[in-house]
């Protein structure tokens, strides 16, 4: 509960209508897209300017009130759930596209801008902003920056962190800092821009960002390689990279995922296959794009693909990509609860990881479908279950622990693009070690000595013991 005097001050800052603490507002901001995580905040606030943000943070800092920044609430790691109460700061009123600078090839915007709308504005000028999380129709760029969102084009173009070059952010003290700028080179001190990208709202609230843009590739070709053998599909991924071809997209989809995606999209995906690879290549040289597609077709066949199809039209290619983007949510049709993880391994280990996931699922008798950005090693083992079945949920938890463990053993990580949030906080130490955790906590203290910025995220109250898996 917030004291009446504080609520009055908050209303004064943003205006009567834009601070809410009625049951409706609290309930509808008690969740994000993470399953089985819900907690009521004490209030919801919608700032409209960076000054609003600064004044709210100052007040919250003085009274030690947790602040949880929120874009569209499409997080999958519990990042925008107020697990310790406090105020949810919804950024969607700050959604201006400030400018697209065609001389510097940069764009500057406020954090609440919808990712898809931004893509459309950029593409209308023949430019290109590669990060494309599957949630981009709903997600906001501020959220993308805070989680360092990836997407389907990561292997060739990198992820959000590779594009953010300047930020304006408000510290818990209310001070406003600016980092980087329209600069492709800037080594003035520590790289605070990169530090803030992926900081999950635990250090500061971003109020403006500048990203770099690329000229849009002129040509694009999409293909689908189909396999009766899941291992052959996974091996193809390393073979393609081994041949020094870097496609724009290289997605892996296993059979259970394929089935539900087809049921929702009805585009004629081959249901009798164990796995498919969805591959896209783009570029400014048609000949080179064609050559890559041909080479990859050959490699797919060499690795044992049952069939390879090349999309005959842009519509067909778009349909394939749209179908792939719907994979997560479509899996939700199987069972009420869907737990999507993003364990990531070096891409040479994709085949081993897929096999390991299937073995673990069998061992714990849970259903795990796997799809994901195989080309950059970022897999999405997705478990369809039912939150009401406590026994099963416990087995799911054990299975995922083992999957994280396997990923780290193979030189990978516990999260490739969703963030740590609260879901993976207990496992962070497995990845970064005790010294790593301590150092990160030191950084957190330097920014946020009173721990008001999204408390309870990234750092767990206690780390999970590394299990000893009997093999």
């Amino acid at each position, binding site marked *: 509960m917030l004291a009446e005097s504080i609520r009055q001050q908050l209303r004064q800052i943003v205006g009567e209508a834009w601070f809410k603490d*009625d*049951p*409706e*507002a*609290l*309930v*509808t*901001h*008690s*969740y*994000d*897209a993470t*399953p*089985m*995580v*819900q*907690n*009521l905040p004490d209030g919801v606030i*919608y700032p409209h300017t960076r000054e609003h943000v600064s004044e709210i943070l100052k007040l919250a800092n003085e009274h030690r009130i947790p602040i949880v920044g929120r874009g*569209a*609430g*499409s997080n999958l790691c*519990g990042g925008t*759930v107020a*697990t310790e109460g406090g105020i949810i700061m*919804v950024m*969607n*009123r700050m959604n201006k596209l400030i400018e697209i600078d065609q001389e510097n090839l940069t764009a500057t915007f406020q954090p609440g801008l*919808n990712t*898809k709308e931004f893509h459309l504005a950029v593409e209308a000028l023949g430019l290109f902003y590669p990060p494309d999380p599957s*949630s981009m*129709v*709903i997600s906001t760029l501020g959220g993308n920056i805070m989680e360092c969102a990836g997407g389907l084009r990561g292997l060739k173009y990198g992820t959000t962190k590779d594009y953010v070059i300047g930020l304006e952010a408000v510290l818990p003290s209310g001070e406003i800092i600016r980092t980087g700028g329209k600069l492709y080179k800037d080594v003035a001190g520590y790289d605070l821009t990169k530090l803030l990208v992926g900081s999950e709202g635990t250090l500061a609230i971003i109020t403006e960002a500048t990203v770099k843009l690329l000229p849009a590739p002129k040509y694009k070709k999409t293909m689908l390689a189909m396999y009766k053998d899941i291992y052959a599909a996974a091996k193809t991924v390393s073979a393609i990279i081994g041949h020094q071809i870097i496609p724009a997209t290289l997605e892996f989809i296993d059979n259970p995922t394929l089935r539900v995606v087809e049921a*929702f999209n009805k585009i004629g995906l081959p249901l009798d296959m164990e796995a498919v690879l969805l591959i896209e290549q783009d570029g400014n040289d048609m000949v080179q794009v064609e050559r890559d597609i041909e080479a990859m077709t050959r490699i797919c066949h060499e690795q044992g693909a049952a069939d390879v199809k090349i999309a005959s039209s842009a519509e067909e290619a778009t349909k394939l990509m749209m179908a792939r983007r*719907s994979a*997560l*949510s*479509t899996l*939700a*049709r199987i069972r*009420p*609860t*869907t*737990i999507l993880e993003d364990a990531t391994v070096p891409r040479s280990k994709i085949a081993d990881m897929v096999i390991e996931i299937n073995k673990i699922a069998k061992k714990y008798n849970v259903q795990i479908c796997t799809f994901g950005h195989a080309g950059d090693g970022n897999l999405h083992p997705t478990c369809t279950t039912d*939150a*009401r079945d406590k026994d099963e*949920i416990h087995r*799911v*938890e054990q299975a*995922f622990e083992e999957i994280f463990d396997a990923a780290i053993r193979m030189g990978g990580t516990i999260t490739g693009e969703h963030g740590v949030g609260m*879901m993976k906080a207990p496992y962070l130490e497995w990845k970064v070690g005790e010294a790593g955790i301590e150092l990160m906590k030191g950084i957190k203290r330097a920014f946020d000595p009173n721990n008001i910025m999204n408390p309870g995220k990234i750092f767990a109250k206690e780390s999970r013991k590394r299990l000893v898996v009997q093999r």
Partner: protein
Amino acid sequence: MSETSIKPKLASTSVNPLAERLKLTLNYDELSNCIRCGFCQPSCPTFKETGIEAASPRGRLALMKAVVDDLMVPDEAFREQMDLCLGCRACEPVCPADVKYGQLLEQTRDAIEKHTEHRWWVKPIRNAVFKQLFPNQKRMRLLGSALRIYQRFGIQGLVQKSGFMKLLPDTMSQMERILPEASAKGVIEQLGTYVPASGGRKPIATVGMFRGCIMDVLFTETNINTVKLLSEAGFDVVIPEAQNCCGALHAHSGELDQARELAKKNVDAFRTAGVDYIISNAGGCGALLVEYGHLLHDDPEYAEAALNFAENVKDVSQMLMEKGNIPQFAVKENGSGHERVAVTYQDSCHLRNVMKAGNAPRDLMNRIEGARLVELQGADRCCGSAGIYNLVQPQMSMDILDHKMEHVKQTQAHYLLTSNPGCLLQMKLGIEREQMSEQMKAVHIVDFLYENLVK
């Protein structure tokens, strides 16, 4: 990954009758199917207008679930939020988890209605409208006649001139101006109950024409044109006299029992008529007709017949495209020289999202020689008419309409076609509000097709 326990700190300890009712009526499995991914939000007009989570499908589902989970009591804000939903169902086709949002909303509104203490004068009016007027075609006719007398004999002019209308909000007077002339005679009075396939051909199939209630009073002409079009396309058309209002307004306003009664009568009427298909020309009616199976699913006597009925419901545009011998259409020489007539189309949400008519209306428009189809940006987004929404939520309805009209203007079309009477009136209203009636006309797609039929 363990579940965060959530303290029911918003719910009071005393029993709330509406909450108890919602626990009984809401399908909890269906509620649990929402994975809160948020994919519904870009498609939701009220979310687009407000930017408030609670005004989105994901938010409304969370509120329903919170009540059932004893997390909150269904207060006034809860009711208002459920009322604010257009029921346009645009969230359903984009929902990857296939949540039956429309059904959950209906269940919620039904429970709310049963527990609403209306002001003393509202109940009798609701009773009169929902129970005495809509279900009774004779009374609808009488109302039509009265309206017609009013329109015919200059009372309308008197009222308009006397400034009486100025006392009402702008919207009401604009509405009054765009209201079509009511007819005292419905489609059966004018055509009888049977119209054979034209030209003495062997019929492709026998179709039953659903005439609607308001449709047959305010848009009798469209009903007549629908029958004639179907006959031209090679169908025998039967118009069962025993049919009545579809019950859509009842179902959407929380009068589910009443809707079920009406549905049963229609199921009987068309079963007796022995038709192959039931044809609707109003997206809003059709959408409830195709859901009769769900509406009557736990009625042992009617469940199967209702399902059978629902499976054979089609919109007139679907029927023409899928089964008909499509006649030739060509635009008659238009007054403005030789430029091709530009037509645009505003989807009926229910036709698109519930009846899933796909491209049938546009496919038909593309067949009209001399007409150029201009795609309306955001045509798949609700226009704000939504049954009686524009009467009960005038502010939101007009905000949505004004945004819609920005896109309509950009089309520079001569004709704006729609597939539902509510949308048609709303589009007429939009044109009136923008003072564009000189250059653009809103027309029901059936009327436009029949008008340009090459006989």
